[in-house]
């Protein structure tokens, strides 16, 4: 009897030890390759915008076109663009859609890192876990530039930077953390199967429309649904950016949203650790 209880406990301990070791490997790889990660983030930026005459400008042109189109469709076409919390619809849209551009990049391009950088996997000895980190960092640089432009636009509209901006780094950091882990998880799986990357790309638009970037999640009538929606990390981040720019609310004023995001973050952490532990040695064989 005692033995029967002993065995599963040992099994659990062994498992904890194994995943702990994997996590320690990831930390060690990042610590050992700090400089390379920073340098490769810049390399990734160059790679993304290389080969077009306008180069860097595309980082601004593409989002500008998207924003204009949505603004036009909603305000002029659907006449739905009402002011929110005293802010013009255009600004409300801007605040929520700017993090989306980062998240979209991470959902699509960020989920194919091992394919995009297959020479780092199959030809050179390079720590695999850091690839998603430097790709994510490179997208974050673009995001930071857009964020600055958006802040300037807000100031031009007579909405100065206030104390609520203090929580902006927190939301950005949480977004970075979540999507870097996502990127590791998704890149591993899409290296194993094209189906996975196809599934992801075909759902990006769906994620965009259900995540409350174009509509206000705070106005959902059904209280249960409102709670469920908060388990979507995209919603949490977009809403967080709007807390800063529009709603003028602190992150701790909605503890449930924080709790829901924490749950999703932990799940993502578990998933990425599990897949990394499972597949890191097989990736070079299948690429």
């Amino acid at each position, binding site marked *: 009897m005692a033995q029967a209880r002993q065995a599963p406990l040992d099994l659990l301990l062994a498992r904890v030890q194994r995943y702990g070791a994997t996590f320690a490997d990831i930390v060690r790889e990042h610590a050992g390759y700090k400089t390379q990660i920073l340098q*490769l983030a810049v390399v990734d930026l160059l790679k993304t915008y*290389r*080969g077009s005459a306008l180069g860097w400008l595309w980082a601004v042109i593409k989002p500008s076109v998207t924003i204009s189109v949505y603004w036009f469709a909603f305000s002029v076409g659907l006449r739905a663009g009402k002011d929110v919390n005293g802010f013009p619809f255009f600004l409300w849209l801007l605040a929520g859609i700017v993090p989306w551009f980062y998240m979209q990049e991470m959902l699509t391009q960020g989920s194919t890192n091992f394919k995009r950088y297959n020479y780092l996997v199959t030809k*050179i000895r390079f720590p695999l876990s850091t690839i998603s980190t430097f790709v994510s960092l490179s997208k974050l640089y673009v995001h930071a530039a857009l964020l600055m432009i958006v802040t300037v636009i807000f100031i031009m509209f007579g909405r100065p930077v206030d104390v609520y901006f203090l929580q902006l780094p927190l939301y950005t950091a949480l977004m970075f953390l979540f999507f870097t882990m996502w990127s590791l998880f998704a890149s591993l799986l899409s290296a*194993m199967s094209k189906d996975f990357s196809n599934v992801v790309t075909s759902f990006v638009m769906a994620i965009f429309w259900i995540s409350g970037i174009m509509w206000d999640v705070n106005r959902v009538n059904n209280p249960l649904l409102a709670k469920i929606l908060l388990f979507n990390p995209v919603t949490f981040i977009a809403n967080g950016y709007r807390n800063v720019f529009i709603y003028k609310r602190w992150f701790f004023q909605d503890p449930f949203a924080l709790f829901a995001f924490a749950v999703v973050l932990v799940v993502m952490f578990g998933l990425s650790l599990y897949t990394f532990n499972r597949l890191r040695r097989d990736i070079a*064989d299948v690429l």
Partner: protein
Amino acid sequence: MSAKQIPAIEFRHVYKRYRLYRSDKHRFLGIFSKRIAFKEVFANRDLTFKVERGESVAIMGKNGAGKSTMLKMITGVAFPSSGKIDVNGRVSALLELTAGFDPEFTGRENVHLRGQLWGLDKAEIAVLERQVVEFADIGVYMDQPMRTYSSGMKARVGFAIASSINPDILVVDEALSVGDKAFRQKCDRRIKEIMAEEKVTVIFVTHSSGSAEAICNRGIVLEKGKLAFDGPIRAAIEFYEGPPDTPVVAG
């Protein structure tokens, strides 16, 4: 020389197993479930050997004998399914020279990228760049994207980069026979230069017994993933090619 020195490379009961699924879909499902059927293929079986520092070993075997897999595991880009591999020292691999570059970047940028990947500082990268530009000798193409390179040009840059570091362990694949005659001779000279350094361990993969005998003093023959022969180079060549007095039509 102390008898107890650390070997450069040590393989202990190394197996490399590839799982072949019916399709990519099955392989994907196989990640999550143990019930998905697959075939197992062993590229390497029970490899056990030691290579001491300063030795030069020829690896021989037919296509599919498991040479490439073994080399990949020595360079550290692939991992054994079971068993243990110890590699002590900096490995430089002259394998698929045309691979391992970012096609979007120029030759020069790829040199910088590689330097960064190796963790070199600015001054070291400058030296690397000078060496590579000089050795590869491809002129203005150095500043063109590598996707526009011919395979010969890629190989030149590839060899120049891989041979620029002074490795402890040099892994040379015979697929090296790229480029024109003059460049091949240049490569041969460079390899001999590296080998002349004391204590450099050389792993040389080849089909040609001539170059194996010229470079190596020990030979390992692989057959269907297993170690079929390990011994002095002459005996290894005899084992691989059959008795020497049987005349073979020169090719």
